[in-house]
């Protein structure tokens, strides 16, 4: 009996400490901490503009998932504040069913807008219909879903294929005599992997002086990328380009190069390319250790804000699918300003 009690206590402590983790993370990173998911009955804020706050329910993936998601979450939290006229509640999960449950809760709570970055593309029809019936407007961000577009107002997404194309065009512009590429892919089948791989595959198939030395998935994992590149180095196969589909994997690849004393960066033996524009990655560009970093824009909040403002003022959204501007940075032209502005 005593033991059982203790076990319960211990697990309780565990849970409390977990909640503490979740809670303190955004607070410490200096946010304007909105009342997370307690939501309702927000006291009259000082903004005082149109009197009522717009109630939004935001369903996102876990901010711990990646630097991208962290930046995305931070951006949303900075936008949807009481000062800006919003009463926002957040729900996080990497699992579709939990996200759907959260959506149902938001519908019951009677939010005005439901903002959704879906974990999975399927299974959203019913819940979005419920939202529509309740007069709640849905805006998708970052990820699309398999549902009729009548169910949502707009979808703000990145065009991964375009990101890939921009990068490959940049690489082609380097005019290397020969392209021997180590292609490190993300988790196979993910939108980012498909988009970023597609452009390169097409180019390699088309050009005779473009070769793939190895094409391997490192599943977004730096350690795996390091081993993949290590293996190519051990085999002694020559290569001069590393095309890594995110910054972490590029970092792993570079660690292997450093170990083997293979120079990389601007004007060096190996061209290093990454994606996502992590701040530290852009700094590598600034130091000319890497050559290129493609942006995957996590800052959808301003787009969403604009759409909501349009709808609130009685206008209509002209485009269902809004593709965000995304840049590609070249080490020879990047500035400290770029790093500060676009680094995530």
């Amino acid at each position, binding site marked *: 009996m005593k*033991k059982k009690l*203790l*076990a319960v206590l*211990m*697990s309780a402590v*565990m849970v409390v*400490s*977990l909640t*503490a*983790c*979740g809670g*303190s*993370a955004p607070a*410490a*990173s200096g946010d304007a901490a909105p009342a997370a998911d307690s939501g309702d009955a927000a006291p009259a804020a000082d903004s005082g503009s149109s009197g009522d706050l717009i109630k939004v329910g935001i369903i996102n993936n876990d*901010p*711990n*998932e*990646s*630097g991208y998601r*962290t930046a995305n979450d931070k951006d949303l939290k900075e936008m949807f504040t009481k000062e800006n006229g919003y009463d926002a509640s957040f729900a996080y999960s990497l699992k579709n069913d939990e996200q759907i449950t959260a959506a149902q809760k938001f519908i019951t709570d009677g939010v005005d807008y439901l903002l959704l970055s879906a974990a999975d593309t399927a299974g959203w029809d019913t819940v979005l219909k419920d939202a529509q019936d309740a007069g709640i407007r849905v805006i998708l961000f970052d990820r699309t879903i398999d549902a009729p577009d009548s169910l949502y107002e707009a979808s703000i997404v990145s065009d991964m294929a375009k990101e890939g194309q921009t990068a490959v065009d940049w690489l082609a512009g380097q005019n290397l005599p020969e392209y021997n590429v180590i292609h490190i892919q993300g*988790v*196979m089948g993910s939108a980012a992997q498909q988009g970023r791989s597609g452009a390169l595959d097409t180019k390699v198939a088309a050009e005779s002086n473009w070769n793939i030395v*190895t094409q*391997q*998935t*490192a*599943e*977004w*994992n*730096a*350690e*795996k990328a*390091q*081993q*993949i590149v*290590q*293996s190519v*180095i*051990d*085999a*002694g196969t020559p290569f001069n380009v590393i095309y890594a589909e995110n910054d*972490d994997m590029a*970092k*792993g690849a570079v*660690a292997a190069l*450093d*170990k*083997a*004393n293979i*120079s990389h960066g601007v004007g060096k033996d190996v061209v290093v390319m990454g994606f996502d524009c*992590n701040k*530290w990655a852009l700094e590598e560009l600034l130091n000319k250790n890497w050559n290129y970093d493609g942006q995957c824009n996590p800052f959808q909040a301003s787009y969403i804000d604009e759409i909501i403002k349009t709808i609130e003022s009685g206008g209509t959204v002209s485009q269902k699918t809004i593709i965000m501007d995304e840049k590609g940075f070249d080490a020879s032209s990047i500035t400290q300003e770029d790093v500060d502005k676009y680094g995530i």
Partner: protein
Amino acid sequence: MSSETKIQTRKVKGGSIFRNQIFIPVAALLLLALFNLIADPSFYKITLGYNSTGDPVLSGYLMTILDYGSELAILAIGMTLVTAASGGQDISVGAAIAIAGSVILRVLCGHDSRPETLQAPIIVAFLVACVVAMLFGAFNGALVAYFKIQPMVATLILFTAGRSIAAWINNNELPIISDPSFAIYGGFIPGIPIPTPFFIAMICVVITMLALKFTNLGLYTQAVGINESSSKLNGLNPAFIKFLSFVLLGLCVAVAGLIKVSRLSSINYSVIAKDIEMDAILAVALGGNSLGGGKFNMLASILGAYVIQFLTTTLYKFNVQSDALPAYKAVVVIALVVMSTPKAREFMSKIGKKLKPAERSVA
């Protein structure tokens, strides 16, 4: 009379070469080595080069195996003890490495996530990580030893929560260490051409071997794992020994965590040391140790760890998609499970016996 018995024992030993524990990892190693030798002998080429700081380094697939297999070998030490004592496995080591790594970076970075200089000596950071990892090990150990929760279930808690805890330790920021002295632990010591992780692993192995020789760790752990009730009546405290094994695994986790974060001078909480727990458990199994606990052979486990890295490196060499690696490892697991059944062993020793007389007649 005495000479007769001697002959008998020798005979028994000869027939049981296949029953010897270390046979499994050695056979697997030879098989892989042979495969590579036939497929591409350049696999064994080792070259001496110079790295970016101008120090000599050895490179080649074999060096890669020694290098990357090290974390696994270190973990295999702790996992073997946990397996032997508790008859179960700790599946939270990957998450615990994330925690240990995060702690190291946190101490080294202080408040700034990208410091110009180290804010604390590396040894201090490492020691703090050891304490933290051992505390988490103690948490697992307490659940297993004192609350009698199945090890896999008990460690599931940390398996689930560990990476979030790791992220929380660094306020979810991404610390990066630019000081080159930190990269030594996952790279090379200036002037020494063999990767540091291998040295660290060997130090751990030597310490473990000394501990097994100069303490009763081995005897007690095995006794508790084989027969808890009987151990208790021999004056042992089975709960404490199980608890201790988890704490020692925590220490191994801290060492592996140091190497892991040093390799990239950074950390990614969600993927660092991902799935390493499965490899560590596989190393123990490949060492011919029963996953049900009891008798163990430490060197066989360590060898098992390097065999797994040998397999991984071989697969990378032949450009097998890395997300297919688990499938290949699954094949190894199946082969192992079959090989360790008494039926298969009997079969093998029969073959062994048939081979023996042939040899003798040749001689």
